[in-house]
């Protein structure tokens, strides 16, 4: 059985995929994860997840059928408007 290992290097950081391991059950998976990814205190947290439990999404975005720039940072350009507003207020 294949297990995917996610590890956190420091508290507050995201858990990131570290690698995978083969183990016959959960007990072994936990022991191997500690042995391979925690021996030198390099991880503060470890997740082991059975590979088959992971759902991979083929297209992890909403297709841009319409103009959806109002959902994105680049949909808002404040620079020109801000300059104009400051000029109008006399604070430029």
């Amino acid at each position: 059985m294949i297990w995917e290992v996610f590890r956190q290097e420091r508290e507050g950081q995201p858990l990131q995929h570290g690698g995978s391991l083969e183990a016959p059950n959960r007990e072994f998976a936990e022991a191997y994860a500690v042995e391979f990814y925690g021996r030198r205190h390099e991880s503060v947290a470890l997740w082991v997840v059975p590979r088959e439990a992971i759902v991979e999404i083929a297209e992890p975005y909403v297709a841009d059928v319409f103009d959806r720039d109002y959902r994105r940072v680049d949909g808002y350009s404040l620079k020109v408007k801000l300059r104009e507003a400051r000029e109008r207020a006399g604070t430029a």
Partner: protein
Amino acid sequence: MLERMTDEDFRAHVQGGGQVETGDAMPEDYRRALIKFIEMHGNSELMGVLPEREWILRAPTLQRKLALTAKVQDEVGHGQLIYRVVEDLGKPRDACFDDLIAGKTKFHNVFHYPTKTWGDVGVIAWLVDAAAIISQKALLKCSYAPYARIMKKICWEESFHILHGRDVVLTMMTGTDEQRDLVQEALDRWWGPLMQFHGNPIPAEHDPMYEWRIKSQGNEEARQQFLDGYVPQIWELGLTVPDPALRKDEETGVWHYTEPDWDELKWVVTGHGPATERRLGLRRASREETAWVRRAVLADAA
């Protein structure tokens, strides 16, 4: 996820810095090249522990014994991570072990040689590991992402090993004349294999491992980096590098050296090194002797 594409498009993808994940479609040639390369790396981790294992009982202090034991444990751990990547590419771990002990697959040239004295242990832990980490750092950019990810952890531990090796060498160099002689003699023995370590200087663009961006640098580039980083460190300790032709061209920054013995390299890595048979024999015996443990443990887990 990468959909199936032509070999040409795939090549353009990896050459443009694109990466590949386990479930992605990939050309058979790429998969085969990956297995060959990564399996050889796994074999080297596993065979690389044997020269050090031989010294655990003979190490001069308890601290050194513990450090060597920890290092052996690290290298075996690297082997575990690496063989796992190979398994996902389609070759089971048992098949890797079978091929290794049958002499069908390769491991690094430096692990085919005996370790004569404690001086060898220091030189190996410092300079062999230094040469290895140069190759390994170039794998952080490997086009096969699962391999690149585990290299991050492996490189981190390897830098620690170099520190250990340097400490062993510095302790001896600040000790007695006899200790200094042991280091010099070991350097004399290991210089040849060290210069062969990164392989013959074929141009990167003719190296299939580079073409697929499994490696991100050519062999000679790696060797130059090794010389540039470590020859000054060797010299500053008063050690002599056993190559009268070795010098750096200050204008071009290129190191010149006597042509390494490529025939020896080829002969040694195809299973004819002075310690090859003995070490493979040990690997074979330990696999047989520990078979009952695996059987017992797995039966209980099932």
